[in-house]
């Protein structure tokens, strides 16, 4: 199984991909969230810090302003200022400036002239350049301080008037916004603070809390396009900051900028452990889920593989190895089911095999197994005798005692037969009433001995239920190698022998060579018989029936002939019994009736009016169709029913007397005359005969053929004629071959004679020609 396509790999892959997606999403969302949090925090910090910064600047300014105001109110200071001596004034400025740590001290006259200054840049006597801005500030009374660039760095300027008690001068003190100031702001606002003064478009020195390395970048940022107020994210040497630019002061030609920065990197740094933890958790989860997925998938795919192998094994027919899967889950149940299925299949297959080779009822080998055993014996050239045993009266037993009894009987028979056999022999049950015995190493003589023994054994009555049944058997024997060298031919010959045995007095027959050819002819005839009417192989011959009293022929009997394409003309004596046995006799009758009617019509048209006798089989008397069919045909051909005579044998009527009687009445109602054929061969009583709607009796030819005055036949014939006449029946004697027989019949007032003496059966044309002959020619033999 390929790893790629295996269930295990798929489960693992899907699980891992899912987990990767989840972890990835989690990681990135955390990342985004922290980044946003940091950004938000930084901007909040920046905002707060900016406010703090502005407030600090404001407070600082007011504090300084207050300090300066306090200083300016000092009497000594005022006194010194009032003295007007510039050296004194300078010294007092230095002195008092030091008290509040001012870096620049300037005394301005009321008109803005510098009276005294400690700053080199601000010359005494000159006009102070920020005087106007100071006045503006004072006028607006809002800010307490002025931020200006001074000597390249930003300075806070604070002003106070010198009162004596009227204002006589103004003292301006400057405080450098130096690194210490920036540090202080940073410690309070928690932001990186940078100041840059731009004086007359010339940037001064950067004052910053940032490390030296970043300062160039910061300066360029502050001088850059984003120098105006606003928040932006900036990057200096790969350090990221959220920066707030402030313009602290702006004059015509100078500007003081501040940059407040909240470092993002350090804030992000705080989340690095979180990232690492998430990563670690993700890796652990990944590994755990990988292992879990593999285990889970293995837990499924292994047993599935085992089950698949088991299923393949079962498919190949191996039912012995059970599936070993000790699990309590669905797969375990599947394994149990598979085992159950396997044993079930094995059992059923065994059963099927047994059924295929054994009879269901007796459990004995069937024909297939018998053939196989026979075949194997033949293959080993071991002599073998076959006894084919048929039970004749099984049907009778079934009618007497019922099918269950027959089953019991057959079981009993099989037990008895089995008991009589040697262990090496085989008893097979071929069909309901046929058994086959294979006698290993036996010849014909031994087989005959055993067969006789078996026959006697089965003749002994058996008590089944309330019945004592004695079985009448016929046995056919064939032997290998004497009677054949294939299992098939041996079986067939044994069966033929058995069939022949039915005719034998001892009902035991050893196969005679050649019997199988006759048998085969029968089978061919039976097969072809069904097609004979349709293929025009049948034809009717007509035997004239002489009206003895009138001396003319007005009647004939139609006799069926079969022109077989292979065997030539086949005698009715041969194929009629076969037709009766194979159930195709009705086909023949049907054809005969239609052909007879057709021929009669044809003759009628030519002026030959005859009454024609047709033979009706026993089968035809079992249903109503015959009468119906005949009346239909008569209507169709427009033939008077009086021209037809149906001949029925005694035995046919006797088989189902009630049904037959009904059919006969129907036929009679149609106007068809009825005749009892072969009278004297059956056992019909005269009383019974009286009930039949017949008009004619036909004495069997066996009584007529050798008729002479002294024989017993003469008595029978004569008395039959008289009795028939008494019953109002006409009498036909058939088989009349001699003239003296005819004279006797005439004397005994027999009505009609039929036989070779008058004419043999003739084809339709010949018959027509024969009838057309002068009477003398016809009856030349008679007289």
């Amino acid at each position, binding site marked *: 199984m390929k790893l790629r396509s295996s269930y295990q790999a798929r489960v693992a892959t899907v699980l891992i991909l899912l987990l990767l997606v989840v972890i990835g999403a989690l990681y990135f969302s955390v990342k985004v969230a922290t980044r946003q949090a940091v950004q938000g925090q930084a901007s909040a910090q920046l905002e707060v810090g900016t406010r703090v910064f502005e407030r600090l600047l404001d407070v600082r300014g*007011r504090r300084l302003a207050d300090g300066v105001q306090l200083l300016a109110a000092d009497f000594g200071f005022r*006194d010194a200022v009032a003295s007007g001596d510039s050296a004194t004034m300078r010294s007092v400025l230095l002195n008092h400036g030091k008290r509040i740590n001012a870096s620049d001290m300037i005394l301005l006259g009321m008109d803005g002239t510098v009276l005294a200054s400690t700053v080199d840049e601000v010359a005494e006597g000159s006009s102070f350049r920020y005087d106007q801005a100071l006045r503006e500030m004072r006028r607006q009374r809002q800010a307490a301080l002025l931020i200006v660039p001074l000597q390249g760095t930003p300075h806070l300027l604070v002003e106070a008037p010198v009162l004596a*008690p*009227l204002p006589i001068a103004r003292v301006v003190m400057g405080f450098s916004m130096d690194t210490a100031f920036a540090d202080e702001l940073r410690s309070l606002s928690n932001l990186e603070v940078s100041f840059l003064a731009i004086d007359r478009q010339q940037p001064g020195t950067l004052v910053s809390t940032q490390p030296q390395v970043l300062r160039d970048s910061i300066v360029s940022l502050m001088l850059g396009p984003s120098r105006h107020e606003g928040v932006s994210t900036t990057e200096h040497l790969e350090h990221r900051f959220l920066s707030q630019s402030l313009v602290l002061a702006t004059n015509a030609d100078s500007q003081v900028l501040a940059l407040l920065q909240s470092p993002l990197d350090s804030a992000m740094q705080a989340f690095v452990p979180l990232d690492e933890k998430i990563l670690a958790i993700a890796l652990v989860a990944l590994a755990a889920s990988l292992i879990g997925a593999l285990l889970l998938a293995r837990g499924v795919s292994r047993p599935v593989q085992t089950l698949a192998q088991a299923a393949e094994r079962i498919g190949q027919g191996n039912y012995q190895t059970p599936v070993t899967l000790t699990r309590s889950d669905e797969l375990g149940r599947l394994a149990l089911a598979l085992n159950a299925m396997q044993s079930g299949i094995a059992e059923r297959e065994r059963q099927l095999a047994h059924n295929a080779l054994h009879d269901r009822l007796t459990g004995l080998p069937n024909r297939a197994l018998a053939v196989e055993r026979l075949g194997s014996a033949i293959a080993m050239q071991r002599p073998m005798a076959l006894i084919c045993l048929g039970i004749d009266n099984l049907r009778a037993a079934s009618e007497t005692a019922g099918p269950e009894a027959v089953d019991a009987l057959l079981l009993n028979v099989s037990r008895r037969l089995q008991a009589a056999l040697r262990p090496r022999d085989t008893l097979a049950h071929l069909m309901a009433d046929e058994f086959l015995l294979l006698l290993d190493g036996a010849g014909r003589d031994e087989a005959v001995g055993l067969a006789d023994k078996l026959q006697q054994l089965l003749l002994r009555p058996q008590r089944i239920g309330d019945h004592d049944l004695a079985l009448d058997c016929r046995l056919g024997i064939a032997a290998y190698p004497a009677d054949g060298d294939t299992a098939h031919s041996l079986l067939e010959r044994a069966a033929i022998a058995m069939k022949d045995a039915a005719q034998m007095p001892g009902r035991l027959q050893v196969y005679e060579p050649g019997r199988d050819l006759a048998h085969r002819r029968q089978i061919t005839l039976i097969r072809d018989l069904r097609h004979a009417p349709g293929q025009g192989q049948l034809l009717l011959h007509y035997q004239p029936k002489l009206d003895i009293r009138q001396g003319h022929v007005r009647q004939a009997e139609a006799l069926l002939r079969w022109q077989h394409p292979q065997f030539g003309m086949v005698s009715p004596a041969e194929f009629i019994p076969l037709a009766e046995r194979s159930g195709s006799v009705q086909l023949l009758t049907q054809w005969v009736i239609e052909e007879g009617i057709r021929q009669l019509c044809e003759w009628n048209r030519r002026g030959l009016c005859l009454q024609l006798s047709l033979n009706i089989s026993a089968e035809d008397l079992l249903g109503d169709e015959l009468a119906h069919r005949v009346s239909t045909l008569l209507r169709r051909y427009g033939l008077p029913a009086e021209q037809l005579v149906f001949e029925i044998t005694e035995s046919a009527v006797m088989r189902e007397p009630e049904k037959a009687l009904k059919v006969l009445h129907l036929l009679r109602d149609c106007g068809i005359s009825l005749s009892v054929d072969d009278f004297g061969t059956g056992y019909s009583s005269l009383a019974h005969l009286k009930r039949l709607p017949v008009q004619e009796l036909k004495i069997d030819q066996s009584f007529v053929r050798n008729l002479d005055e002294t024989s017993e036949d003469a008595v029978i014939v004569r008395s039959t004629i008289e009795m028939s006449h008494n019953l109002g029946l006409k009498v036909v004697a058939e088989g009349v071959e001699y003239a003296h027989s005819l004279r006797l019949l005439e004397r005994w007032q027999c009505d009609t004679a039929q036989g070779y003496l008058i004419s043999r059966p003739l084809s339709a044309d010949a018959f027509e020609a024969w009838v057309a002959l002068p009477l003398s020619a016809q009856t030349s033999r008679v007289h």
Partner: protein
Amino acid sequence: MARCVHLLSHLILLLAAAGPASAATLEVLMQQADGRPVADAVVTLQGPAGAAAVVSSAEMDQRGQRFAPHVLAVHTGTQVRFPNSDNIRHQVYSFSTAKRFELRLYEGTPTAPLLFDKPGVVVLGCNIHDWMLGYIYVTDDPHFGVSDAQGRVRLEQLTPGDYRATVWHPQLADLQPMDGGTLHIPAAGLSHRVLLTLEPASADLPPAPTAFGDAFNRAARETAQ
């Protein structure tokens, strides 16, 4: 103010007593452009002849933590005493060029009066009460007077003739005196109206809030918040 009026009337009486029988009276009405009367305005006259009576002493009282009068006009060479009518001490000083002095913290009347021997404006302050502001206007002119609350100055016993008038007020620009022009005063006397343009005054009242106070209060409020 009552004291001032009293002093003024006393001074006028003196003038009247000193002058000849043909003396004329000048009444000057000090007004701003919108007609409001200007108090504490000084008018000095330089006459054609005849010296005015010399009053050699004056008082600048401190009462209710204010200088009283707010503006005192004296002749050059006048001794001015600085009595303290309050029950707290004051430290009066001036850095003005006309007279620099400093009276250490004192109660009652200092022993010696101060001589104001140079003409000019002397701005008075108290070192411990920053809002206290007073002016002594020292002039060489023989006739002078300070306007009352109605903005009136009445100068009597004047010899009719032409006088050179000078006007001064603390709220004039740069504290500089203003030329009042030449007045011809007939014997029947003259009523003259002077229009003054004043700069806004800084209040000299005790509760006046200072910048420092503002800052302090604001800071206090902010801390309270």
